[in-house]
């Protein structure tokens, strides 16, 4: 089988196609323009959702996009990957009346794509230069959001990024069928279009960068370093060939030429229950794996992946197995022990089974890389910040997945970056 970017099974084509103009118009007209709308309260970035949807309905697509981007500069990515079924769309009052929410995520994508396709200038202008310089570590959602807002407020920003491309999770960690057509890079270019932001690639904290040096040379520092490490299973056979972290697998697929995607095993086992597990499982299936089995140690209700994502995995041919934890990986596959929950505690039952596999993808969570964070306070594997995103070190702020602000979602990181920028601005102009 040959996979091409427009093949229906390709992991590089949109899994959910963009709305057509007619579909967007019909869907926008389903919005009731609620007062103090529940969807807005459910959005981590607080986008004025009824306002942007009304603008779509009236044909004011640029206004709609501006409303979105004013609160969430990564509205384009969030319109694609936000778990809207547990955020804005879960709150939509149309659920009560019709058991079908307004498709807010898809409308958001429609608006932001429309602006990015047609706008000749960045929608926001910079305030007069303040003469202040801010260092941002990490060009992921938190870092870029923070940099954009700081630039808007008139500060000069230098972003330090360890990898070759900007975008962080958006570029390396999301399934390609969610971010088709190189969207992550187009969005980065759009964000940087405001001006006043320099990105230096190949600069990693702990290598040629230190917090001490950044504090000395810049007026403020923002850490948006995400979670760079992966959790281990700590079971025998974990380091065998054919066993890989799901995030590394997704990254390999994302960075490959769509005409020559990476090979996958015939029988793939994915261990974990979050979004990354589902992304990796669907991706493996779309890359030609015959059998993909996603195994999670607890039940469907406890999975990090939403019910909609679980269904998506199933409709893409992934078999979900629950209440089983891996105990060892051998040449023939993964041995699992059945588990049971009793009073909220998970325990093995002693019964085991072998899940045949020639490829094993681990998706059991990511961790903060704590090296090079001297002087910062950590708790629960995250950097501790106060209400203004200030760390224990003067002049140093942090946000995104490396702090404990909410769910580890792009939308939360964008919000952290935006709020941290406002806090940094107050600090710089105090």
């Amino acid at each position, binding site marked *: 089988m040959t996979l091409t970017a427009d093949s229906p099974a390709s992991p590089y084509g949109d899994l959910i196609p963009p709305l057509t103009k007619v579909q967007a*118009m019909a869907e926008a007209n389903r919005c009731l*323009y*609620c007062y103090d709308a529940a969807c807005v309260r459910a959005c981590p970035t607080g986008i004025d959702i009824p306002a942007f949807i009304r603008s779509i309905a009236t044909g004011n697509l640029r206004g709609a996009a501006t409303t979105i981007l004013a609160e969430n500069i990564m509205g384009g990515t969030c319109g694609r990957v936000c778990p809207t079924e547990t955020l804005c769309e879960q709150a939509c009052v*149309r659920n009560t*009346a019709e058991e079908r929410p307004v498709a807010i995520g898809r409308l958001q994508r429609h608006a932001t794509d429309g602006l990015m396709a047609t706008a000749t200038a960045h929608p926001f202008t910079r305030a007069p230069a303040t003469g202040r310089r801010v260092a941002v570590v990490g060009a992921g959602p938190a870092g870029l959001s923070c940099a954009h807002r700081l630039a808007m407020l008139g500060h000069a920003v230098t972003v330090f990024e360890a990898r070759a491309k900007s975008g962080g999770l958006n570029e390396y960690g999301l399934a390609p069928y969610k971010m088709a057509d190189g969207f992550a890079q187009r969005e980065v270019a759009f964000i940087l279009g405001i001006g006043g932001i320099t990105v230096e690639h190949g600069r990693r904290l702990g290598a040629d960068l230190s917090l001490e040096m950044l504090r000395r040379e810049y007026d403020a520092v923002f850490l948006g370093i995400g979670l760079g490490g992966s959790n281990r299973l700590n079971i025998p056979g974990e380091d065998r060939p054919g066993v890989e972290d799901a995030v590394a697998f997704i990254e390999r697929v994302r960075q490959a030429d769509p005409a020559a995607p990476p090979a996958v095993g015939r029988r793939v086992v994915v261990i974990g229950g979050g979004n990354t597990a589902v992304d990796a499982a669907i991706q493996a299936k779309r890359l030609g794996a015959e059998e993909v089995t996603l195994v999670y140690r607890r039940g469907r209700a406890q999975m990090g992946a939403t019910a909609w994502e679980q269904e998506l995995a199933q409709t893409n041919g992934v078999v979900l197995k629950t209440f089983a934890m891996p105990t060892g990986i051998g040449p023939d596959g993964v041995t699992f022990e059945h588990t049971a929950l009793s009073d909220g505690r998970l325990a093995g039952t002693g019964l085991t089974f072998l899940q045949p596999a020639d490829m094993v993808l681990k998706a059991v969570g990511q961790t903060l890389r704590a090296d090079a964070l001297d002087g910062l306070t950590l708790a629960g594997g995250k950097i501790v910040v106060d209400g203004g995103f200030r760390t224990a070190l003067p002049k140093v702020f942090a946000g995104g997945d490396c702090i404990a602000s909410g769910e580890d979602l792009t939308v939360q990181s964008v919000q952290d970056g935006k709020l941290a920028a406002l806090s940094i601005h107050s600090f710089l102009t105090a």
Partner: protein
Amino acid sequence: MADLTCTIAGIRSPNPFWLASAPPTDKAYNVLRAFRAGWGGVVWKTLGEDPPVVNVSSRYGAHHDTERRLYGINNIELISDRPLEVNLREIAEVKKAFPDRAMVVSLMARIEEEAWAGLARRIEATGCDGLELNLGCPHGMCERGMGSAIGQVPEMVEQVTRWVKAATRLPVIVKLTPNITNILWSAEAAKRGGADAVSLINTVNSIVAVDLDAMAPTPVVDGKGSHGGYCGPAVKPIALNMVAEIARNPATAGLPISGIGGVTTWRDAAEFLALGASGVQVCTAAMTYGFKIVEDLAGGLSNWMDDKGYRSLDQLTGRAVRNVVNWNDLNMNFSAKAVIDPALCIDCGRCHVVCEDTSHQAIRIDPGEGRRLFTVIDAECVGCNLCSHVCPVPDCITMRPEDTGLPYVTWPQDPRNPLRTA
């Protein structure tokens, strides 16, 4: 099964749904399709003296609702642009093929007796059932001294009606224009002239939209636009009022009315009948959906009449007229309060914000279980009805009459009226 047989000015049809004088009735091809589909009658598109008029391109502008349904159309088309002889021949043929359907023919002429009388006599020879005088066209023809140029002057309405009545034995229906200050002046003039019935409304003068690229009214004709005649669901309220005014006016009460203006569903038709019409004419709905809608128009009206116990149209016609009164005859002591059903409420908050921003601050929000709880503050509610209209859920907000124990008191009698008469 309710009897839908309809009689207006002696003209009988198997049901009250006629196609109005307009493009759908411009030629035998369309009218035959309409009769096969079940329409009770037609008013053939207006005939004039030869040579025929010449039309422009384009001819229609549109007013859409938010879901791109046609709310209203306007047109700048003139009367029939086919040779008179061809129209007359086709009218005779179609009437012969469908003798049970009403065949009314619309006509228009210069304000000269011989023009009207000659045209009327030639039309009568086709064997048709009646004439409708087009005194309403608000565009193009009026600039030539016809259409609404006549319909807006009561003396001319009376004169033309008299000329045609004297020239023919056919029933004469006078079609009235809404582009006047008081519909009664022209309705009374038609009656004085001997009209057997009136039909209304003709189209409303309008600019329906502006093409913001061409910077011209729609429809755009080579970069320019003109005012046109507005029709469709959007004009129904205007038409209903004018029908009711004629029905309840002592000088015109009893004058048969053919109701026109935005009739789209059987319910619309029932409303026209309730306000005094004996039948209705339909155009825009057919131009929007095709002739097949007559099935639901007739079926829906019949079923509803069965449910309500009306056995014939005359039992329905005018039933609501006695309840149409002037403001001064309303009961000042009547009071109703909005009531919100929390079980049906979906928590959109629209009732609250419109009351808060634009009315009487009478809807309170409390935190509820799972969703907010909206409650009407009776002391502040004036019963204006706005909340129930903006609520997206049918029957969620209803108006509950209050038992005030007070008598029916009109404003002229009200003690609060400094100029009270009783």
